[in-house]
Each structure stands twice: as C-alpha cells, then as structure tokens.
C-alpha cells in the first residue's frame, strides 16, 4: 500500500537495492536469526485513512468532558487557566517543534535563546541565581531536588511535608528507594506544615526539608521560618511553588530557599490529562554545578557576536555516564517555550493582575462557602487560589462530584483519596477563568447536592 509519509517507489527500491548489491528487501534482514523473526501480522490497531482517523479521534475526544463544555473547579496541581491565543501560534512554528535538542548551536540559536529567556524568567520569579532548561514536571523535579540535596550535603535523610502534592511525594518515595535515602513525613496543622513537628524531626542528618508553597491545600507556608530551622542544621530548603502565585507572593529565594522547583503548567500549558507539562528547577549559585538537566549559557561567536550554547555539560549523562548528577537527558523545551511566551505576554503588570484575580475570586468563593449553612472552610491559614471545603459528616464526595458533573461542573478533588483523615473534604481551585456567576451557581449546586 502507498503511504503519504513514505516516498519510496518500486523504482527507487529496485535502484537502491542494486547499489547495495542485493536482490531483495529480505537480504537487509539476513543478520536477524530466523528463530526470532516475527512471522505474520502484528495484532495491533488497523490503519485508517485520514477522514476515518479524524472521525475516530473526534469520537474518542467527545467521550471526555472538557473545560469548554464543563466549568472546572479542579486544581490539585493542574489548573484551568486562560491560555493567551498567541501561545499556540508560537509553539505551532515547526522550526521549534520539529527540532531536536540544540546540539548544533549555530542552527539552533532560536531554541537556545528561548531557553535562556526561560531560565531568566524562572530566576526572576523565584529569586534564585540559576535555573535549568526545565524538567519533566514539577513532581519529578521534587525527586531530583531531593537527590541533589542528598548529594550536596552527603546526608541520607529527607524531610517532606505532607502538605506537598501526594503524587510528588509518591515519586519521591520511589526515587528514594533507588538512591537508598530515608524519607520522613511531617504532619499538617490548619492546612500548613506543623512547625513543631518539623522542628522536632530536623537533625544534623537531615539533607533537606521539602515543602510546597502554596501547598497542596492551597495554603501559603512560612518559608522563612522553615528555612531558618533547617539552615541551623546546615541542611537545605527545597520549595516547590506554583509559579503563577509568584506574581504577588514573595519569591522563595528571598525567603531563604536553596532549591526552588515546581510545575509551569499554569503558564499557558494545556491540562492534557496532566501531561506533558514542564517542571522548572532553580538553585543558588553554590549549587549550580550540582543541578540536573540541560543548561543554556551565553557566549560569543568568532566574530564577537552574542550567542547561546548548552553549557556545564560535565554534569550530564552523555559525558559523565554513571557519575552524572542525574539520568535525565531530555527537557520539556516546547513547554518551556509555552511558559516563556506566556510570561512575555503577561509581562510585569499582567503576571500581578492574573495572580490577583485568582486570589480575589478564590477568596470570594471561600466567603460564599463560609456563608453557607452546611458547608465550611477547613483551614484558616492564608491561601492563594485553592482551598478546602469541609462537607457535612454524612456527605459522600464521589456521589456529589458525579451529581455536579451531570450539572456541568468538574467539581473539586476528593481529599479523602490521598488523606484518610480528610474524608468528606473537597479541594477546589478558582482561577481567573471563573466568573462570579459561575462561582455563585456552583456553590448553590453544591449545597443542593447535600
């Protein structure tokens, strides 16, 4: 069968085989032993023509309840933020998306400069000295931060707050098993890390304390105090942060963080069932050469013109092999580009405005919940754009969420799934995309479900 991506004609094939000195395609595979040759046709999905394939994919797509048709109050790490229309136009430039890693800098200056600008944006927002070219996502970046801390301090113990995203903590656990590190988890009190418990657990064996702020419950942690606690024992502070919040919240760097990581999904990256997103990773100057992943640096060409290259590669797997700082090879360049275009579009004023809108709307929603007779807000700690609703004792979150789905809402995250003590608690996010009407109606609907 002729195929639209395959140019080979029978004549081409005959000519090429002749040059090689072969009579048949079969001879090309003579080095594969017969006993392991696959006989027959693979039992995989059949080919479809373009019209049928588009129809099939549309059918699959239509079976999913998307943000265009449903009003989302789901957060928990992935958010329904506005994606400025310019972003898709930029990332659809195939010079960007069909390129490989910029190993040949002379013809990759566009990508290299875009990453350099991404690193600059991340440093500016986090208050850190150095950022890398991005990681798989915020959750794996947390595990990499733990690994960096253990290697930098030569200590084996990591202390992580239970207010860090449960899935990020699960990955940290998996990763710690590989590296033979110990993990201690710290309780949550009123939506934030229990500082007394934390202080009692920190010791000279602690490589790092890992927190998230705003944390999984939406609450803002006291970064400075936690930093002082761990620094007193010469360990490191790792802060995972929703970067959109840093439009108005003080940068973790200024508050004493040694490593700041997180997920740039709020910066114009499609939710896409949770991936691909883009992790970011920033450190103090002292930790620069311990960082995982690619880093772009500025330099000059032969004629003295400014240019950009991948640099400090002596840390990386393709040079250092088993002694590398990490096994990571790729980055999330196209999504780092998304984030950069987002930040270029929002700019100095817009990043503050969008962060403020999130705070205003989330606090309006929380107030509406507070005024409801049967609903309550679980915590009094300050929060960003997410908060926890405490439902009445007998309420079943799964059933409520199914009813709300039927009414056109993607309701909040059922905290009982990850925190046994939080049965009947709903984590909701309110972004700049939600209108007052949507919020009011959601609260009314939620009450009606009880």
């Amino acid at each position, binding site marked *: 069968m002729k195929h639209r*991506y395959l140019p080979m004609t029978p004549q081409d094939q005959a000519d090429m085989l002749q040059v090689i*000195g072969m009579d048949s*395609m079969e001879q090309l595979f003579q080095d594969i*032993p017969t006993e392991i040759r696959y006989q027959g*046709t693979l*039992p*995989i999905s059949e080919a*479809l023509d*373009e019209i049928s394939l*588009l129809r099939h*994919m549309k059918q699959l797509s239509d*079976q*999913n309840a*998307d*943000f265009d048709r449903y009003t989302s109050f789901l957060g928990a*790490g992935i958010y329904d933020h506005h994606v400025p229309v*310019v972003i898709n136009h930029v990332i659809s*430039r195939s*010079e960007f*998306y*069909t*390129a*490989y890693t910029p190993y040949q*800098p*002379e013809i990759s200056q566009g990508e290299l*400069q875009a990453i*350099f600008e991404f690193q600059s944006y991340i440093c*500016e927002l986090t208050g850190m000295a150095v950022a890398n070219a991005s990681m*798989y996502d915020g959750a794996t970046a947390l595990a990499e931060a733990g690994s960096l801390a253990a290697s930098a301090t030569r200590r084996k113990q990591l202390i992580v707050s239970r207010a860090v995203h449960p899935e990020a903590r699960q*990955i940290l656990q*998996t*990763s710690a*098993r*590989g590296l033979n590190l110990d993990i201690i988890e710290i309780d949550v009190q009123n939506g934030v890390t229990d500082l007394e418990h934390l202080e009692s657990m920190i010791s000279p064996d602690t490589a790092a304390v890992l927190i998230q702020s705003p944390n999984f419950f939406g609450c803002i942690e006291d970064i400075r105090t936690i930093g002082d606690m761990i620094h007193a024992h010469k360990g490191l502070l790792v802060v995972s942060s929703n970067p959109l919040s840093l439009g*108005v*919240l003080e940068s973790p760097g200024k508050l004493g963080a040694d490593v700041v990581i997180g997920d740039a999904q709020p910066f114009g990256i499609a939710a896409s*069932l*949770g*991936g691909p997103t883009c992790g970011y990773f920033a450190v103090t100057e002292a930790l620069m050469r311990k960082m995982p992943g*690619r*880093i772009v640096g500025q*330099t000059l060409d032969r004629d003295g*013109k*400014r*240019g950009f290259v991948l*640099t400090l590669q002596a840390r990386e797997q*393709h*040079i250092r*092999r*088993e002694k590398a700082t990490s*096994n990571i090879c*790729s980055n999330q360049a196209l999504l780092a580009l998304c984030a950069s275009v987002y*930040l270029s579009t929002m*700019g100095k004023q*817009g*990043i503050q405005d969008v962060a403020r809108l999130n705070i*205003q709307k989330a606090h*309006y929603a929380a107030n509406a919940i507070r005024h409801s007779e049967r609903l309550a807000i679980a915590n009094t700690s*300050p929060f960003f754009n997410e908060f926890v609703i405490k439902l009445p004792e007998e309420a079943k979150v799964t059933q409520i969420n199914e009813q709300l789905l039927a009414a056109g809402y993607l309701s909040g995250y059922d905290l009982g799934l990850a925190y046994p003590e939080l049965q009947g608690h709903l984590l909701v996010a309110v972004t*700049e995309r939600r209108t007052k009407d949507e919020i009011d109606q959601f609260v009314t609907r939620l009450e009606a479900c009880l």
Partner: protein
Amino acid sequence: MSQNQALIFELSQPGRVAYALPECDVPEVNLSEMIPSSFLRTEPAALPEVYEVDVIRHYTALSRRNFGIDNGFYPLGSCTMKYNPKINEDVARFAGFAKIHPYQPEASIQGALGLMYTLQQDIAALTGMDQVTLQPAAGAHGEWTGLMMIRAYHESRGEVRTKVIVPDTSHGTNPASATVAGFETITIPSNDRGHVDLEALRSVVGQDTAALMLTNPNTLGLFEEQIVEIARIVHEAGGLLYYDGANSNAIMGITRPGDMGFDVVHLNLHKTMSTPHGGGGPGAGPVGVKAILTPFLPKPIVAKREDGSYYLDDNIPQSIGRVKAYYGNFGILVRAYTYIRTYGPEGLRQVSEYAVLNANYMMHRLAPYYEISYPGVCKHEFVMSGKSFKQYGIRTLDIAKRLLDFGYHPPTIYFPLNVEECIMIEPTETESKETLDAFIDTMILIAEEAATNPELLLNAPYDTVVRRLDETQAARKPVLNCSCG
C-alpha cells in the same frame, strides 16, 4: 544579520501590555487583608513590558534562527528524526484531549482511558511484552522505571543483585539510570565486529548480576546476531535483560524484543512513533514488561472492566510506586496512537524496511569516501569515522560544521565513544532518494574540500546567524540568565 538578536527583556518599554484580562467581577478586597504582607512581594518581578506584535515578531524571529525537520534533512543518528505528521498535532489539540483534568471522574474521561488502554495493548504486541505502563516521560525515565522493577523483582526473591552490565556502545543514560536505581555499572568492551563480546560478558555475569542493558540494533546500527545466546547467558546467571528501545525504528513487525529474550523494554515515542522532539522535549517512554515483572509495574495502569468501561487500576500491591505525576505525557500518547492508526501493522513494517534500506543505501554510496567502521549490512543507522581527514588537520566537528552551510542538520558526532571521530547517520524512512542523493553528494564534496582546501572547513560555518561559538568561555564564566531584574 550583523546585529545581536534582542532578548525579549531588551524590547521592554514601560506601560506596554500584550494581554487582556477581564475586570474583577467579584467585590475586591485589599490583598493584605487576605494574605499577610510578610508573604507578599515588595518588588514586582521584572518581567518585560511589550505588546502583542512584539511577542509575535520576537518568537517568529527566534523560530527563523532554528532548524527543524520541516526545514530539511536531519540525519541525526540514534534520534530518529522522522517527519512529524500534522494530523497528530491537530488531534492532540482537540478539546476532549487537551482540556481535560487528571482528577475528573473516570466516567468523564472514558475516551482518554480507552485510547491509553489500546496504546498499552498495541505497544505490548509490537514489542512482544505482556503489560505496559505509559507513565515514563522519556527514554531515560523509562530506563529508570524498568531498572526499579528489576530491582524489586530480585528483592522479592530474596536476592541481592547489585550490578548492571552495559556495553561500551550504550547510551549514556543507561549507566546513569543504573546509578539512580541504586546499581553499580559494569561496562564491557565490544568485539572487533562491533557486537557484544560474549567472552567479556561471560567473565562478568554472576550471582550479583541484576541486568544487562542492551540496544538492539546497537548504537553502531548493527543487529546483535547472538542475542539469543546473550539472553541465555544472562538468564542462566539469574539476571534480566533490559531493551533500550531507542533504535526500534529498525525492527517493527520484523522482530520483537520479547522474542529475542528481553524482559523489559522502553520505547521512545518521540523517536519511533513520530511525536515531535519539540527542541528537546516533551517525549514519552512507555515501558513494557514480561509477566514476571507485571507485579512491580508503577501505579496506576489503565484497565478494562467486563462491561467494556475503562478504569485506573491502583491495585498493584508489589508496585515500585509512582514514577510520574498523573498518567504520563498523555498529549504525546495521543499523537503516538494517531501515528499507529495511520500506518497499522503492515505500514509500520514498511516504515522499518524503508528506514533500513535508506541507511544501507547511504552507507554504500558513502563508503568510497568515508571509512565505514563496520562494513556489512546495517540496520536503520550506520557509523563512519572521520579519522582519515586528520592528515589534513580536519576533524569530524569540522565536517559537521561545513554541512550547516549546505542547509543540512549534521549527523550525530562523537558517539558511540568507541569509534574515533565518529559520524553516525540515521536517514529514517520519510526521506526520498533525491534527498539522500543530494546529501551524499554534499558529503562527497566536503570530503574533497577537506583534502584540497581544509581552511574552508576549519572556518565553517559561514552562512549561519552566528558562527562557531566559544563553548569554553561559556562553561568557565557561566552567564545563565540575563540578570535583567
């Protein structure tokens, strides 16, 4: 272009905006009444102030300083730079795929779960494995996932196995992944034919062998003809076999890692399955395993109920845990599934056949001009050495840089490490004979230039937006951000 390309920060003019947010429609409260001022910024982040036309022109200018597959031939060995189909891009942007949340009720994402389930099945069939996880975000991430499963398997049998064996031709990620999974790496030399040296292998396998990691065809583009014997040696010692799927484009429908004796395999969807490399990512690195390893798969995997509905199965008691937030790089999985449905089983076999024919054709035509390191039949890629040009003071790097002037992306250079002045070419199946011929003619011309006018190569490139860059300076005095704030 004699001027530096401006940074976006350098375009900033106070007062310009490129966004239009809605007015706040809820009663506004002072920020400090909601959040203590000690938590708030005292200075706004110094982001640029530009308008929308600046944004578009800036990134359009950057894109024109970049080279992708859509710009031209990109024979980068071991990277499988095949055409990235446009339908894949369109489909991944459908609202029902792009605008869905990982924590929606399962009933509201049945299309997505069904797609993932089918992709798991298809990858299992393609690789000869019993079960697949779609969580890993990239090849290296898949390697680590696979090795963690191997470790859990040995531990479950009460065995302490600490060593992972890799050949000297392996990707750097193999030993690096072994380290982060808690193993020691043993590197064994290849024999003079570029294959695994069986004696060297026999001399290192033993009771401490956890696994052998192998790419097949290997990074020299050669099929390990003795793979069945290799598998026997490792299995008899109680070790398992890991298949680095980076070179799977050579074997689809022709042979399967599972049938060769491998126990674990990862596929790079951004190589074999045509999903775009994106300038360095995102990719996806699903991992398939034989039945002995399924108890250790990461949680959750997508499963199907008897009534035909799909769900996320978290009930894997011996699981190594989670390796990626949510369910993997779903947007990439959508593209890979679309690709498989574009070709079907017969088409994918054609893909591999043509990829191998193209590589062999190039190798034969270039053989009179460049030293082919391992003559014979290659698979989807082959390696040459540039060492014969050293007599003119020319290195492989110079040949690569000269190619830039002719509008080509150079092949992979200086990898694998065991070939001096290595040049590694992978044409892929989506290039026409005319494209291959034009590139070959250029390579022949450059070989002549190297002998007759080496200065020309030493100073190349000439026609790029920047010329050779000072990488030593970049590493010695790192400038890693614009410090514009």
